[in-house]
């Protein structure tokens, strides 16, 4: 307590005010007080000058955000697993068939776009998820991904960067569209291999906003779990379609939203998921609208750049080497 008092007079004065009430509150349960004091009590616990930082290792892949997921009994797990068995065996059948056929694409013709995802009907949206800050009570943005009246995928919603007053959240205002992780049958994780390509092609109709493209390349250990490569998707807006071609060499590495000092080109053989996000930062609060026809890949022999950013060695002890 002393250190807090010494370091920050404002927090100390607030703490003092709360401690004075502390004697009365400790032995009263919030339920006894019709929930009135429950507003004060969590606030009393939340006053820390530094957030709880777990430096050494991470327990959850979701960074603690799956804490509220309801846990089910073993029996229920087995029953659910059996229900999914049929679908998984079908997937497995396809995999075996593909292996036996042994007919890979040998020539990737330049200028030809291989469509990875196209959105024309409800089934195409199955492997995609939308998230926003409201999902965890950390903001007021909301979004959806469905089929537009014209018959294409429509990622729309409203971003609001108003920060909820709970003393914990510092910034808010994002909506995110992400594909489910690449996987094989029986829920085995795998990676997409995009090595024959060097361009990402998206046919879209936007609203003039800039969106962020996210290509996740999840690693084995916790430090690499959140590795993600980003680039900006500038949209023109207006009623016409636009085809955005973005070379993979332009994507830069970041982890948990922080651009990394030590950069590396996107490992095209280890792509775990793809996503698009939009933020309300800097006064961009309001509705957004992104219609996507398809997301494809292309090989362009003219583009020879491997990585667009400098790779020189940083001076010692300035960045993690």
């Amino acid at each position: 307590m002393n250190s807090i008092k010494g370091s920050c007079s404002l927090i100390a004065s607030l703490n003092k005010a709360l401690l004075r009430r502390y004697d009365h509150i400790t032995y009263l349960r919030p339920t006894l007080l019709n929930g009135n004091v429950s507003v004060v009590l969590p606030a009393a616990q939340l006053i820390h000058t530094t957030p709880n930082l777990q430096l050494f290792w991470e327990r959850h892949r979701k960074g603690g955000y799956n804490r509220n997921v309801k846990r089910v009994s073993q029996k229920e797990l087995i029953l659910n697993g059996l229900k999914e068995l049929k679908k998984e065996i079908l997937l497995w059948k396809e995999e075996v068939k593909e292996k036996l056929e042994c007919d890979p694409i040998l020539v990737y013709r330049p200028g030809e776009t291989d469509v990875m995802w196209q959105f024309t009907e409800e089934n195409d949206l199955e492997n995609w998820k939308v998230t926003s800050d409201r999902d965890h009570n950390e903001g007021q943005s909301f979004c959806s991904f469905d089929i537009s009246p014209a018959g294409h995928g429509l990622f729309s919603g409203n971003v609001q960067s108003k920060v909820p007053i709970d003393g914990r959240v510092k910034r808010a205002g994002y909506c995110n569209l992400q594909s489910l992780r690449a996987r094989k049958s029986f829920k085995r994780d795998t990676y997409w291999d995009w090595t024959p390509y060097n361009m990402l092609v998206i046919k879209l109709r936007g609203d003039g906003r800039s969106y962020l493209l996210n290509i996740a390349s999840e690693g084995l250990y916790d430090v690499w779990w959140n590795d993600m490569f980003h680039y900006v998707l500038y949209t023109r807006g207006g009623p016409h379609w636009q085809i955005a071609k973005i070379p993979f060499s332009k994507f830069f590495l970041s982890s948990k939203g922080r651009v990394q000092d030590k950069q590396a080109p996107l490992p095209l053989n280890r792509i775990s998921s793809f996503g698009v996000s939009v933020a309300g930062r800097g006064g961009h609060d309001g509705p957004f609208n992104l219609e996507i026809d398809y997301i494809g890949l292309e090989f362009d022999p003219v583009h020879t750049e491997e990585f667009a950013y400098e790779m020189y060695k940083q001076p010692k002890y300035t960045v993690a080497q």
Partner: protein
Amino acid sequence: MHFLRNQLSKLGRQSLILSERYYPIRYDSNTSTDEKKTDDKNKNFVFEKQLTLQSSFENITEKNRDTYLAMVDVFLDRDVHRRNHVEFIYAALKHMETFGVHRDVEVYKALMNVMPKEKFIPRNMFQAEFMHYPKQQQCIIDLLEQMEDNGVMPDFEMQAILLNTFGRRGHPTIKYMRMMYWMPKFKNQSPWLLPNPVPNDALELAKMAVKRMCTVDLHSNVDVYHTNEVESAIDDTWIVSGMSPEQMQLLAQHSPEKSLRIEGPHLIWLRNQSLNYFVLKGDGKEYPMSTDDDEDMDDVSNLTFNKYGWATSKQKQVDVKRSVHEQRDGVIYAVCATGTSTKDSLLSWIRLLEKNGNPCLGQIPVLFKFRSNVAENLLVTSS
């Protein structure tokens, strides 16, 4: 100026009560009425002090760049030791937006200059490694992050300030270097460059938006009309219309039996400003499907001599190239933005288009297909 002085003197006193220290105030007024008012305020202040955190920034009535910088000056002159400067910077950062200075690099520099020079520079490797003066360093890191959030790029004077305050091993200096590496890379990356900040005038914005939408066809003309050119117009407003010669040609070919529709309002964003626009659309033209596509070239079960190569018996025809305005869900004939976004102004737009090179619009029926415009604020429910 006199008003400002009064304001600041009041503030000075309030902050004195808050910090419970007495330092000479820079601006002082000796009018008795003022004395009385501040006394009343101080009483309230003492009473509320325990529960609320109130900073002197909130009490300024006239909020602009000058008063903000004057507040920084008051803080600097108050005390030689500049006690509580970290708290002051945090309070100042919090109120930047209300003073409208959150995009001003000079103001950020003024705040950074509140930190004393030389004191926080680490003198050995242990100090450098273990974050020498962590509160102060974190404070300036937060300041730099706020700049980043608001899209403000630091300059080289800021580098000098940081080097003199935290040295080259300081974390804020390293953060500054990162910003100076990444921010210029994306500053002018957009293919549709816009001024920063975009103008506040709706007409200028509309011109930019229509021009931007028209970049799809480089021959497009962007015209600014006024509704008073039409006799029957009720609204008195401007119309920014975008149409290319190709679209005019397509419109001339449009059959008068089929109706056109005005769709909207759709939204377009120009940086942080948004604008409604409308589209003049017609049904898509049906093209005869070419029969070539039906034939499977990989099917070798029925080989003929002329299946491949030059000897093919297929008749060669010139294919009509589909224009960029002919989309799958309709043909786009024109886009516009009007000052009022009302049906009347859109009707004037159609009349003006008719007058300016599209006489066929006189015969074609035009329908309105409006989307219900839900107010933005209603969409967001308070949680």
